């Protein structure tokens, strides 16, 4: 079998893990081509297709959930390929082995990380080829542009350009050096002959691709760094964009479902009669931990479900409340030092060595949060002729396919997963933590019931709130020792552990000689998951609030205090200084308004924010202005990049000011937007300003890093405005 190694050979990284990515064997290439090409089209390297009419189709292995990465990734490829942007289209890469995102794998390893732990349970520890192929098509960890784009799309585009040049050169029997390329047309300068990419694609596809094609220098970019209109926008203003919930199939049935309100509970009994008495209701389906009603319309299914009085078990968790969970966490922090996640120096001794008045201590708490994506969880499934097809939005389509195979017991050949654009997700709908399998299992069971008809299962908004995978409620305690100059010499912290994720979130950027971070385990029955920026949401809040407390304890300006703890010339220091300068830090503000600052690095990007806010008469925060400075290396699409940070700021403010999931009698209390109040347009600050700091640092992610600084910058602003220190989220009266 001929092996075409694409872009990278085998490499061995610390621990002896072999991650060489064998992208293309001829059989895999043929499979990919069979999936997406029609006569007259040539697939080059699996990620770009060039048609005879010069149309360039880029297969994007990331899912669109509003981040604009389809456009950005296509730009990165088109930049290196040197094509006319008007000829470029994007399509979702099919969730098949041939389209596994090997670039993502390479990116994780290149950056010295282990296999991302939010893939725990989705990726075999041995990182076998099968696991690799099945799972690396993931949208999460802010990876698209910085990894798939930087180490995938650009190299792919450059390699494709190279083989097109080779194809032209051999047709004319000249050397590639004699040729120029502009907008997808290759010209032989001396003779004036020219050929379009579309005319060369078929012969170029037969050539081997270079692993290391030369890439453009920044000054030669024509596309990267411009804000071309996003390719996904037109369909999103006409109602034409089809999300999972919009799948329409002949004779499709609709299903409403109710799972055990206490997570982990099972269905004990249900009398189907009241639902079956309702017109158009066809089935009541008892499931292990839920009951579903299938009808000819969704509203009828909802009515049927509402008529039922199912009994569920509660696993003895029916007395759990948010307050009791907090008491459990405080006991856990009292009773355990926790597992040491990082220790530098001897903070315990340093704390003993300073005078008591030089020790600062504080405790912080954050609540459960819900993703509250606007599209409720849904899935459409159909069993027909022994094969299962499932339509749904999912951040990790390959992992989703594997999960569907596991749940159905069918082989890869008998399972088709149709990944749909997501009406928001923010970590909710992805392979991690069984978050997806939970409702895929329901849809598959319902499809078996009505086979060969298709069935669309939609969680009501109330069900969506009740059965989330929440940002965990957690707590922490911190202690710091200040030196004679007021600067911290020791930082000692214990915190209730969050969700399994990359262990980067607890890091502090500041130069402190003695540090200790300890994670304390305290389990409960409430289902947890990854929420936009994952554990940075809580760690960012308490780290950047506590450093603010230290600055005030030392009698120093919070900006200057932070700056002086950061190395001169570091990305963090430049970003902090940029945010302060753009916000006119230190200038006078109207009475009652305070300024707060926060600095957090996450997913490879450094973000500092300055917020101007006041405390309203009823104790409600009023935010006037948010200024963000962002270093994500370089920026591919400035407008989309800005929008990601704007959106993260709005979501961060919403969470900081208004959001809280509480538990009573073991169940989630909030069931709709009427009691889980998202930020509205009216409460969105009139001024949100985003400034990018172009550095030569590695490209960082952008979907998440704009969010974590919001809560601490706001809490710090409220302290500056009112003298009140807020240590619990949300910042509600």
């Amino acid at each position, binding site marked *: 079998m001929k092996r075409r190694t694409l872009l990278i050979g085998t490499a061995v990284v610390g621990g002896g893990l072999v991650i060489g990515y064998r992208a293309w064997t001829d059989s895999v290439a043929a499979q990919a081509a069979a999936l997406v090409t029609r006569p007259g089209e040539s697939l080059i390297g699996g990620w770009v297709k060039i048609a005879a009419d010069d149309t360039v189709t880029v297969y994007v292995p990331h899912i*669109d*959930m*509003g*981040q*604009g990465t389809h456009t950005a990734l296509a730009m990165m490829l088109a930049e290196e390929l040197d094509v006319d942007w008007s000829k470029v289209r994007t399509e979702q890469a099919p969730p098949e082995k041939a389209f596994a995102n090997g670039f993502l794998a390479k990116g994780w390893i290149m950056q010295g990380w282990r296999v991302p732990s939010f893939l725990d349970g989705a990726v075999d520890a041995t990182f076998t080829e099968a696991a690799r192929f099945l799972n690396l098509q993931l949208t999460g960890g802010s990876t698209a542009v910085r990894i798939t784009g930087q180490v995938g799309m650009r190299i792919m585009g450059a390699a494709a350009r190279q083989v097109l040049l080779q194809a032209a050169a051999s047709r004319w029997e000249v050397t590639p050096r004699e040729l120029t390329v502009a907008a997808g047309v290759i010209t032989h300068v001396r003779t004036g002959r020219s050929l379009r990419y579309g005319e060369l694609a078929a012969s170029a596809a037969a050539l081997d691709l270079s692993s290391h094609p030369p890439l453009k220098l920044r000054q030669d970019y024509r596309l990267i760094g411009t*804000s071309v*209109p*996003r390719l*996904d*926008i*037109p*369909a*999103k*203003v*006409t*109602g*034409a*964009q*089809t*999300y999972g*919930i*919009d799948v*329409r199939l002949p004779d499709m049935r*609709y299903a409403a479902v109710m799972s055990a309100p206490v997570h982990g509970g099972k269905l004990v009994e249900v009398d189907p009669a009241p639902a079956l008495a309702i017109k158009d209701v066809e089935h009541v389906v008892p499931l292990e931990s839920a009951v579903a009603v299938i009808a000819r*319309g*969704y*509203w009828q299914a909802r009515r049927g479900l509402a008529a039922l009085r199912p009994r569920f078990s509660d696993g003895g968790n029916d007395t759990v409340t948010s307050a009791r969970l907090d008491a459990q966490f405080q006991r856990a922090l009292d009773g355990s030092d926790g597992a040491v996640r990082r220790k530098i120096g001897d903070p315990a001794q340093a704390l003993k060595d300073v005078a008591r008045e030089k020790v600062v201590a504080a405790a912080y708490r954050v609540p459960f949060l819900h993703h509250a*994506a*606007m*599209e*409720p969880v849904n899935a459409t499934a159909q069993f027909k002729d022994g094969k299962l097809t499932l339509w749904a939005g999912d951040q990790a389509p390959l992992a989703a396919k594997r999960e569907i195979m596991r749940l159905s017991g069918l082989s890869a050949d008998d399972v088709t997963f149709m990944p749909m*654009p*997501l*009406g*928001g*997700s923010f970590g909710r709908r992805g392979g991690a933590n069984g978050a997806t399998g939970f409702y895929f299992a329901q849809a598959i069971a319902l499809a078996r019931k009505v086979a060969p008809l298709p069935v669309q299962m*939609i969680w*009501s*908004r109330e069900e969506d709130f009740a059965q989330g995978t929440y940002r965990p409620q957690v707590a922490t305690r911190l202690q710091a020792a200040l030196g004679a100059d007021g600067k911290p010499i020791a930082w000692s912290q214990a915190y209730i552990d969050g969700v399994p994720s990359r262990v980067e979130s607890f890091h502090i950027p500041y130069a402190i000689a003695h540090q200790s971070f300890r994670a304390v385990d305290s389990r409960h029955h409430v289902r947890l998951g990854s929420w936009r920026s994952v554990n940075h949401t809580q760690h960012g809040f308490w780290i950047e609030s506590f450093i603010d407390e230290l600055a005030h304890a030392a009698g120093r300006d919070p900006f200057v205090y932070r700056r002086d703890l950061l190395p001169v010339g570091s990305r963090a220091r430049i970003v902090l200084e940029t945010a302060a300068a753009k916000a006119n830090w230190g200038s006078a503000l109207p009475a009652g308004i305070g300024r707060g600052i926060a600095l957090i690095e996450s997913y490879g990007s450094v973000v500092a924010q300055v917020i101007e806010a006041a405390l309203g008469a009823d104790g409600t925060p009023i935010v006037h202005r948010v200024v963000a400075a962002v270093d994500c290396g370089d920026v591919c699409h400035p*407008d*989309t990049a800005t*929008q990601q940070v*704007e*959106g*993260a*700021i*709005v*979501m961060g403010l*919403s969470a900081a000011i208004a959001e809280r999931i509480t538990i009573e009698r073991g169940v989630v209390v909030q069931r*709709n*937007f*009427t009691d889980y109040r*998202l*930020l*509205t*347009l*009216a409460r*969105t600050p*009139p001024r*949100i300003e985003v400034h990018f700091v172009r550095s030569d640092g590695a490209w960082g992610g952008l979907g998440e890093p704009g969010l974590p600084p919001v809560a601490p910058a706001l809490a710090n602003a409220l302290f500056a405005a009112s003298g009140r220190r807020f240590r619990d989220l949300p910042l509600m009266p």
Partner: protein
Amino acid sequence: MITLKVNGATHAVDVDPEMPLLWVLRETLGLTGVKYGCGVAACGACTVHVDGAAVRACSLPVSAAAGAAIVTIEGLPASAGLPAGELHPVQRAWVAVQVPQCGYCQSGMIMTTAALLKHTSKPTDAEIDAAITNLCRCGTYPRVRRAIRALAETA
């Protein structure tokens, strides 16, 4: 049978009169640009025009819309007398400002904005605040406001 006039066409639908208009539009008539978000008129994703007013279709029984002129996002350009394939001015502003992220709430945002601008062509910020109560989880509010301001300036 209930007679509905949707996007200029008349349909006779055989549905329970209590069924919310949203589900008739999405399931019976296949107009999936109208979105389900909350079912309790709290989020605005299902906003359509009923006799020119922005209405949350999830909470309006279909019988209450019988005979009225209903416009969904799919029929918005035609409702302004524009030929097929052209965008309504609000949609054009949304493209110019690149408002959507995931896009799920945007049908409702656009329909609410179109209804607002029809009777208040130059809304103040306070009027925008009062009219646009639609929820957007991606946080497109700053751009929604910018797009509406741009429309007001050219009105």
